[in-house]
């Protein structure tokens, strides 16, 4: 063995050389295990540092050497602080030599006898350097905990890699063809097609029924018109007969006669306007299903409506109390109009209208943006293509389709006043005709003459008009019914056709209440139409999804395999989450926050850590009597060693030296490598019997022909004392 060195500490401007009284005993000895006791200043710790430096202990992993020692050794490479030269030579157990040297300017060199220089990695493959300071047992526990952190992080990283692999595969599932989905879409397409056919068939039935009910209603109207025409003709015949027998007044000249006649014509015009207004009003109400329902379901409204339908202006002005009759008619008209307007206003403030109005306004504003070339902002805000957005809004507008009540509202707001004015004018004209007749000396016969004359003209006009209307109506109805229009030329003919036509309907149709049935069937028909439209939308959507799926590339994984991959990925996620939590626990253990562990899983993890600690201590504890006891686990929470036979030893009750010896024995006996160098500093707090146990462990290495050198140092209270024990 050779030991020579020169250390210059540049800052101190000091140079240190080996003290021969300290080095020589080592060089002269044929032993390999040395326990050096010396006072401060002999360089015993430097000797350990020198050996450690020469054997590249500063290149060991953190799991193999304390950080403080590693930094201490590494510091000798700092050429601004130190100039270190050395020449060391050790006899290997197989008789060869190992040279380690460095001059002032060179790097460290290690050479086996007759071998080339080797670096730290190659050296550590053959020689294990164990450098430790066994002074703080709790530090040892921390080392194990730190190991747990390293292993745990390593485990988590491994799981993250597999998770990432499965995640990548799973992300491709949505872009690869899903045969199950295709099958589902195809099945759905058939179902939708079948559903559509059923709906179309039902719609066709309802449509046919609806048309037949309307034809039936038209036949009723035709019959009514025939009766009306009969009545007009009968009335006209009666008036003409009466008129023939009515002498023409003599005291009236042509001019006066013309005035009365004009008044009569004016009155007839008002009557016709009144009739036309009423017909429009009745038509617009009966054609609007919800308004019909509103009136049908309200008794007062129904009565008022029926009264207004049954009375005309003639019946008002010829009534004895015509003012009262006019007020009654106007009152009912106002009541009907107000009731319907209240209903309409309520409907228009409902959700459907609010949504519809909003969507329409939105469309207008989008149009404005497009006109100004600013639709880009909309695409940023909605993250959607503007055309798609517009299409979607239009779809929603259809969904929230509303009735346009504007024309109804206009009629309902104006009609009561117009009708009131017509009645008022008719009353005035009627009174004026009477007054003019009296003024011109028209006697009662004369008055009757002019009245009859006016009535005949009116009846003639109405007969002509009704005939003309009936002609067109009859022609169109015959065409609809696919019969010759001559079959509808008479009341009997119409009755006959109606009788035959009624046979087309089943018994559950109430032909005596045609408006109700038409309304009901119309609603069902509308509902079916809506369903058919919705079905069409579903078909389009389903077809698009089917096409989209079919255009995808076929997956290499079946649906079942995909499910398995997903399930396993979820499992990995759970594991990663838990392992991540354990990292936090380990940090808390490191920080000493053990009281925080109350959750069952945390406590279980702490127990696992305790078992690893026990295992790291070779599952045994050296007791003060020199005997070992089996260690089952270390309770981190209560700081207790749980041993065989239910023996529990508190950590604080184990002497520092004992704890250190436990640790050192465990490290020494498990050391690997063909050759071993053991350097132990500051072993002074160990009792001799525990130190003996440590030396026994080193001896075992020596007996295995693996030990190069073992140096153990402890300080002496006497400054100049040097005591070297060899083993």
């Amino acid at each position, binding site marked *: 063995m050779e030991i020579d060195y020169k250390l210059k500490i540049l800052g101190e401007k000091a140079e240190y050389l080996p003290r021969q009284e300290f080095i020589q005993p080592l060089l002269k000895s044929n032993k390999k295990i040395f326990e050096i006791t010396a006072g401060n200043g002999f360089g015993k710790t430097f000797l350990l540092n020198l050996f450690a430096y020469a054997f590249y202990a500063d290149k*060991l992993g953190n*799991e*193999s050497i304390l950080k403080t020692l590693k930094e201490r050794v590494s510091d000798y490479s700092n050429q601004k602080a130190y100039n270190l030269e050395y020449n060391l030579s050790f006899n290997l157990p197989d008789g060869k030599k190992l040279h380690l040297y460095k001059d002032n300017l060179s790097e460290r060199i290690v050479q086996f006898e007759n071998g080339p220089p080797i670096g730290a990695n190659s050296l*550590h*493959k053959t020689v*294990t*350097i*164990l450098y430790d300071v066994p002074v703080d047992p709790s530090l040892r526990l921390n080392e194990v905990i730190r*190991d*747990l952190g390293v*292993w*745990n992080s*390593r*485990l988590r990283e*491994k*799981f993250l890699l*597999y998770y990432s*692999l*499965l995640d990548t*595969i799973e992300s491709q599932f949505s872009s690869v063809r899903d045969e199950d989905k295709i099958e589902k879409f195809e099945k759905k397409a058939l179902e939708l097609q079948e559903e559509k056919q059923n709906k179309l068939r039902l719609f066709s039935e309802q449509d046919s029924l609806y048309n037949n009910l309307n034809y039936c209603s038209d036949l009723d109207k035709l019959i009514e018109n025939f009766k009306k025409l009969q009545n007009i003709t009968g009335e006209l015949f009666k008036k003409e007969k009466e008129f023939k027998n009515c002498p023409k007044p003599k005291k009236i000249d042509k001019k006066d006669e013309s005035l009365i006649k004009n008044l009569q014509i004016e009155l007839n015009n008002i009557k016709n306007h009144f009739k036309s207004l009423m017909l429009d009003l009745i038509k617009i109400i009966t054609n609007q299903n919800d308004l019909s329902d509103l009136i049908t379901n309200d008794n007062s409204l129904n009565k008022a409506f029926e009264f207004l339908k049954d009375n005309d202006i003639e019946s008002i002005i010829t009534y004895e109390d015509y003012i009262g009759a006019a007020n009654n008619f106007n009152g009912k008209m106002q009541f009907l109009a107000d009731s319907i307007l209240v209903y309409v206003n309520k409907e228009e403030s409902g959700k459907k209208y609010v949504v519809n109005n909003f969507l329409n306004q939105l469309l207008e504003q989008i149009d404005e943006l497009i006109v100004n070339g600013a639709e880009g902002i909309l695409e940023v805000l909605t993250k959607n293509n503007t055309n798609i957005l517009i299409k979607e809004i239009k779809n929603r507008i259809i969904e929230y389709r509303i009735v346009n009540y504007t024309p109804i509202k206009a009629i309902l707001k104006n009609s009561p006043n117009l009708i009131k004015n017509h009645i008022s004018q008719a009353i005035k004209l009627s009174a004026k005709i009477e007054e003019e007749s009296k003024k011109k000396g028209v006697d009662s016969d004369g008055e009757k003459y002019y009245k009859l004359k006016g009535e005949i003209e009116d009846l003639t006009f109405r007969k002509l008009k009704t005939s003309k209307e009936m002609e067109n109506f009859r022609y169109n109805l015959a065409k609809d019914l696919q019969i010759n229009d001559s079959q509808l030329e008479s009341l009997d003919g119409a009755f006959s056709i109606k009788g035959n036509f009624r046979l087309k309907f089943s018994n559950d149709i109430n032909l005596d209440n045609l408006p109700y049935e038409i309304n009901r069937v119309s609603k069902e028909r509308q509902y079916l139409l809506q369903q058919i439209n919705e079905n069409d939308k579903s078909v389009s959507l389903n077809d698009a999804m089917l096409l989209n799926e079919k255009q995808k590339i076929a997956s290499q*994984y079946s649906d079942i*395999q995909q499910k*398995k*991959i997903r*399930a*396993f990925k*979820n*499992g990995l996620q*759970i*594991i990663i989450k*838990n*392992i991540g939590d*354990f990292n936090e626990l380990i940090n808390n253990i490191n920080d000493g926050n053990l009281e925080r562990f109350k959750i069952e*899983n945390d406590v*279980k*993890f702490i127990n*696992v850590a305790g*078992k*690893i600690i026990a*295992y*790291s201590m070779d599952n045994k504890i050296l007791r003060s009597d020199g005997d070992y006891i089996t260690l089952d686990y270390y309770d981190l929470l209560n700081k207790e060693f749980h041993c065989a036979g239910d023996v529990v030893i508190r950590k604080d009750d184990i002497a520092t030296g004992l704890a250190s010896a436990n640790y050192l024995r465990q*490290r020494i006996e*498990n*050391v*690997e*490598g063909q050759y071993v160098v053991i350097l132990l500093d500051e072993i002074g707090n160990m009792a001799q019997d525990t130190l003996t146990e440590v030396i026994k462990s080193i001896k075992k290495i020596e007996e295995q022909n693996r030990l190069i050198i073992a140096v153990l140092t402890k300080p002496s209270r006497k400054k100049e004392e040097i005591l070297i024990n060899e083993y």
Partner: protein
Amino acid sequence: MENNTEQISREEMYRDEIFKLLQASLDNFSAKDLELMKEIFMQEKISDEVIIKKIIE
């Protein structure tokens, strides 16, 4: 190269214990899946192909 066998051994023990602790959280896993999960815990590396094959088989 100090104490490497023992290091791996302790790490293996740790992995084994952690697997035992966490396998209860994989309540939907079949025995086969659990076996694979344990392999992942215990083995240094399983190739991507092998792991996928084992998951889907």
